[in-house]
């Protein structure tokens, strides 16, 4: 009799233990599912987030405990702006204008990326692109000027498209300057973003504005000129005083490239 009771007790204990193990296993499976689901969500979030912030910044933020602290680094700034955009907005349907603008941004971003530029901000119809902001780029000056020359060609092509749709053609001005800027994630806990701050950004924007005065499309500063080789055909422009600068700014218009050597 005692034996049966012992066997029963052991049986109940074993059954209880099995239940606990099964329960635990189920819980583990649930947790693993949850983890996989969370991982997938995180991966999706990283992909979508990549449209707003450079990939390198996302990697840094997700892989390390430290924030992407702003650091001073030498960068080449390219600022492009459409000429006569405000007037054009008054004449064209807003929905058409958005399509024209999106097409323009698409073409220009493609060219800038191909030349190792990073489109940092779209400000109205303006494009702020940086070369050498995220990683070391010893060819940042040449890259920026080559990008500007290719943007000129890309705009010609895009204008053909616009003309075929009976839309007015676009014209831009580009200003290029080099200097040290503060680049990194800026803002407070509630709202922060990757950005750049520094005088070279303002200078590039001012130089872009001078394209109207000098009636040209691509202007570079002296700092850019000294780093270019003789492949680039440049023409000096008269020095002009600009807002925020005590000395007149010397600029050069970029005509194009000299013919290549023979194979």
């Amino acid at each position, binding site marked *: 009799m005692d034996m049966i009771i012992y066997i029963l007790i052991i049986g109940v204990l074993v059954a209880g233990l099995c239940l606990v193990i099964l329960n635990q296993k189920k819980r583990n499976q649930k947790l693993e599912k949850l*983890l996989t689901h969370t*991982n997938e969500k995180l*991966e999706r979030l*990283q*992909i979508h987030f*990549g449209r707003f912030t450079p*990939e*390198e910044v*996302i*990697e840094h933020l*997700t*892989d390390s405990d430290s924030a992407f602290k702003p650091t001073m680094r030498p960068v080449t700034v390219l600022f492009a702006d459409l000429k006569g955009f405000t007037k054009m907005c008054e004449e064209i349907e807003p929905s058409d204008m958005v399509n024209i603008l999106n097409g323009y941004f698409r073409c220009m971003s493609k060219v800038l990326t191909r030349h190792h530029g990073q489109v940092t901000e779209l400000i109205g119809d303006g494009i702020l692109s940086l070369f050498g902001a995220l*990683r*070391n*780029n*010893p*060819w940042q000056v*040449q890259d920026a000027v080559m990008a500007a020359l290719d943007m000129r060609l890309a705009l010609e092509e895009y204008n053909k498209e616009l003309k075929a749709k009976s839309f007015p053609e676009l014209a831009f001005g580009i200003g290029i300057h080099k200097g040290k800027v503060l680049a990194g994630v800026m803002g407070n806990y509630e709202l922060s973003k990757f950005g750049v701050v520094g005088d070279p950004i303002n200078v590039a924007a001012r130089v872009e504005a001078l394209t109207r005065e000098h009636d040209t499309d691509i202007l570079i500063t002296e700092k850019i000129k000294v*780093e270019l*080789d003789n*492949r680039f055909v440049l023409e000096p422009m008269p020095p002009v005083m600009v807002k925020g600068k005590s000395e007149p700014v010397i600029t050069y218009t970029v005509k194009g490239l000299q013919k*290549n*050597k*023979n*194979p």
Partner: protein
Amino acid sequence: MAELLNDIEWSEPTLSIVHDLEWESEVKADIGRVMDVHMRTSNSKWLRKTILKWPRYEAQEFPRKLADICILVAAQENACRYCYGVARSWMRLWGYSKKMINNIERSVQMAEMDEKERAFIRFCRNLSRSNPTPPKKDRDELIRLGYSELAVSEMAFLIVNQCFVNRVSTFLAVPPMDDLERLPNSFLGRLLRPLIGWKLRKMGWTENRPLEGDPDSFPGVVQKLLGLPAARAMNDTLEGALNSDALSRKLKVLMFAVVANSLDCEFCKEETHSMALECGFTEEEFKTALNTLSSVHLNTKEEKILSWTRETIHFQNGPMQSRVKELAQEVGEPMMLEAIGIASLANSTVRLAVLLG
């Protein structure tokens, strides 16, 4: 962000297969099977040899498990569809669970690993990615955790060795090995797994011949590996690459210099500068060549290759593979193959030097 196997963009092969019967029988005698990558690299003697040997390098100074993980992590970080598929299958055949492989790929549940393993994986990811430049603090961390300096040097070599193979395979767009990738999940694969795993392990390669000569005469990066079989492996490959005549020595030196400048490696910048002066550049010519990626010593085809070299540092598979195809049409496949080898070797050498230099 590191991608998973099926998310990786991959195109059709960029260069054609070239049959060299003598080479194919040599490969067969060594590993028992001639793979696609061996035929696509057969036109370059140093490159085909390196591609045959380096992926099978057996680490001497640290546990095999870490070396296995390194192959997977490097392939994933470099988004090499071909190598990633092979590494995943090899790991399954060596007995690693699917769950463990998934965890490594997704960098999750690392708590199950010990601190040394976690530090090693971080080191692998950062060195493979090299963006920003390879961090010395990861190396110091491994030494702090108890690995010897020699072990860490060998780890670094193993990672850059994988990066080299990943780059060559990506630039060539070597087709994934579907049969091998299916094997671990097949009935036969599961049944014979221990046997296949053992056979795979037997394919391992180590360089037994010591590196002879005056240590000061070796390239700087080789000197950092002295005491390891990797020193001889690295030296032979560098010698083979620099002495091959498919590309001019001047172009090869400039290709190394371009990578050294992009990754801002002072050690390699100095070495390539001396090499350039030795092979006939004047100080001014070398400076101009680096600034403009063109030179009086290069013809148009060579300048195109030099410009392409800088694109090999950080790239996306799709655009890069299209670019290689285009460039191969302009410069010819033999020249392109050699350029792929040199650019990949330059990337690996400079990354190693940044860390050990």
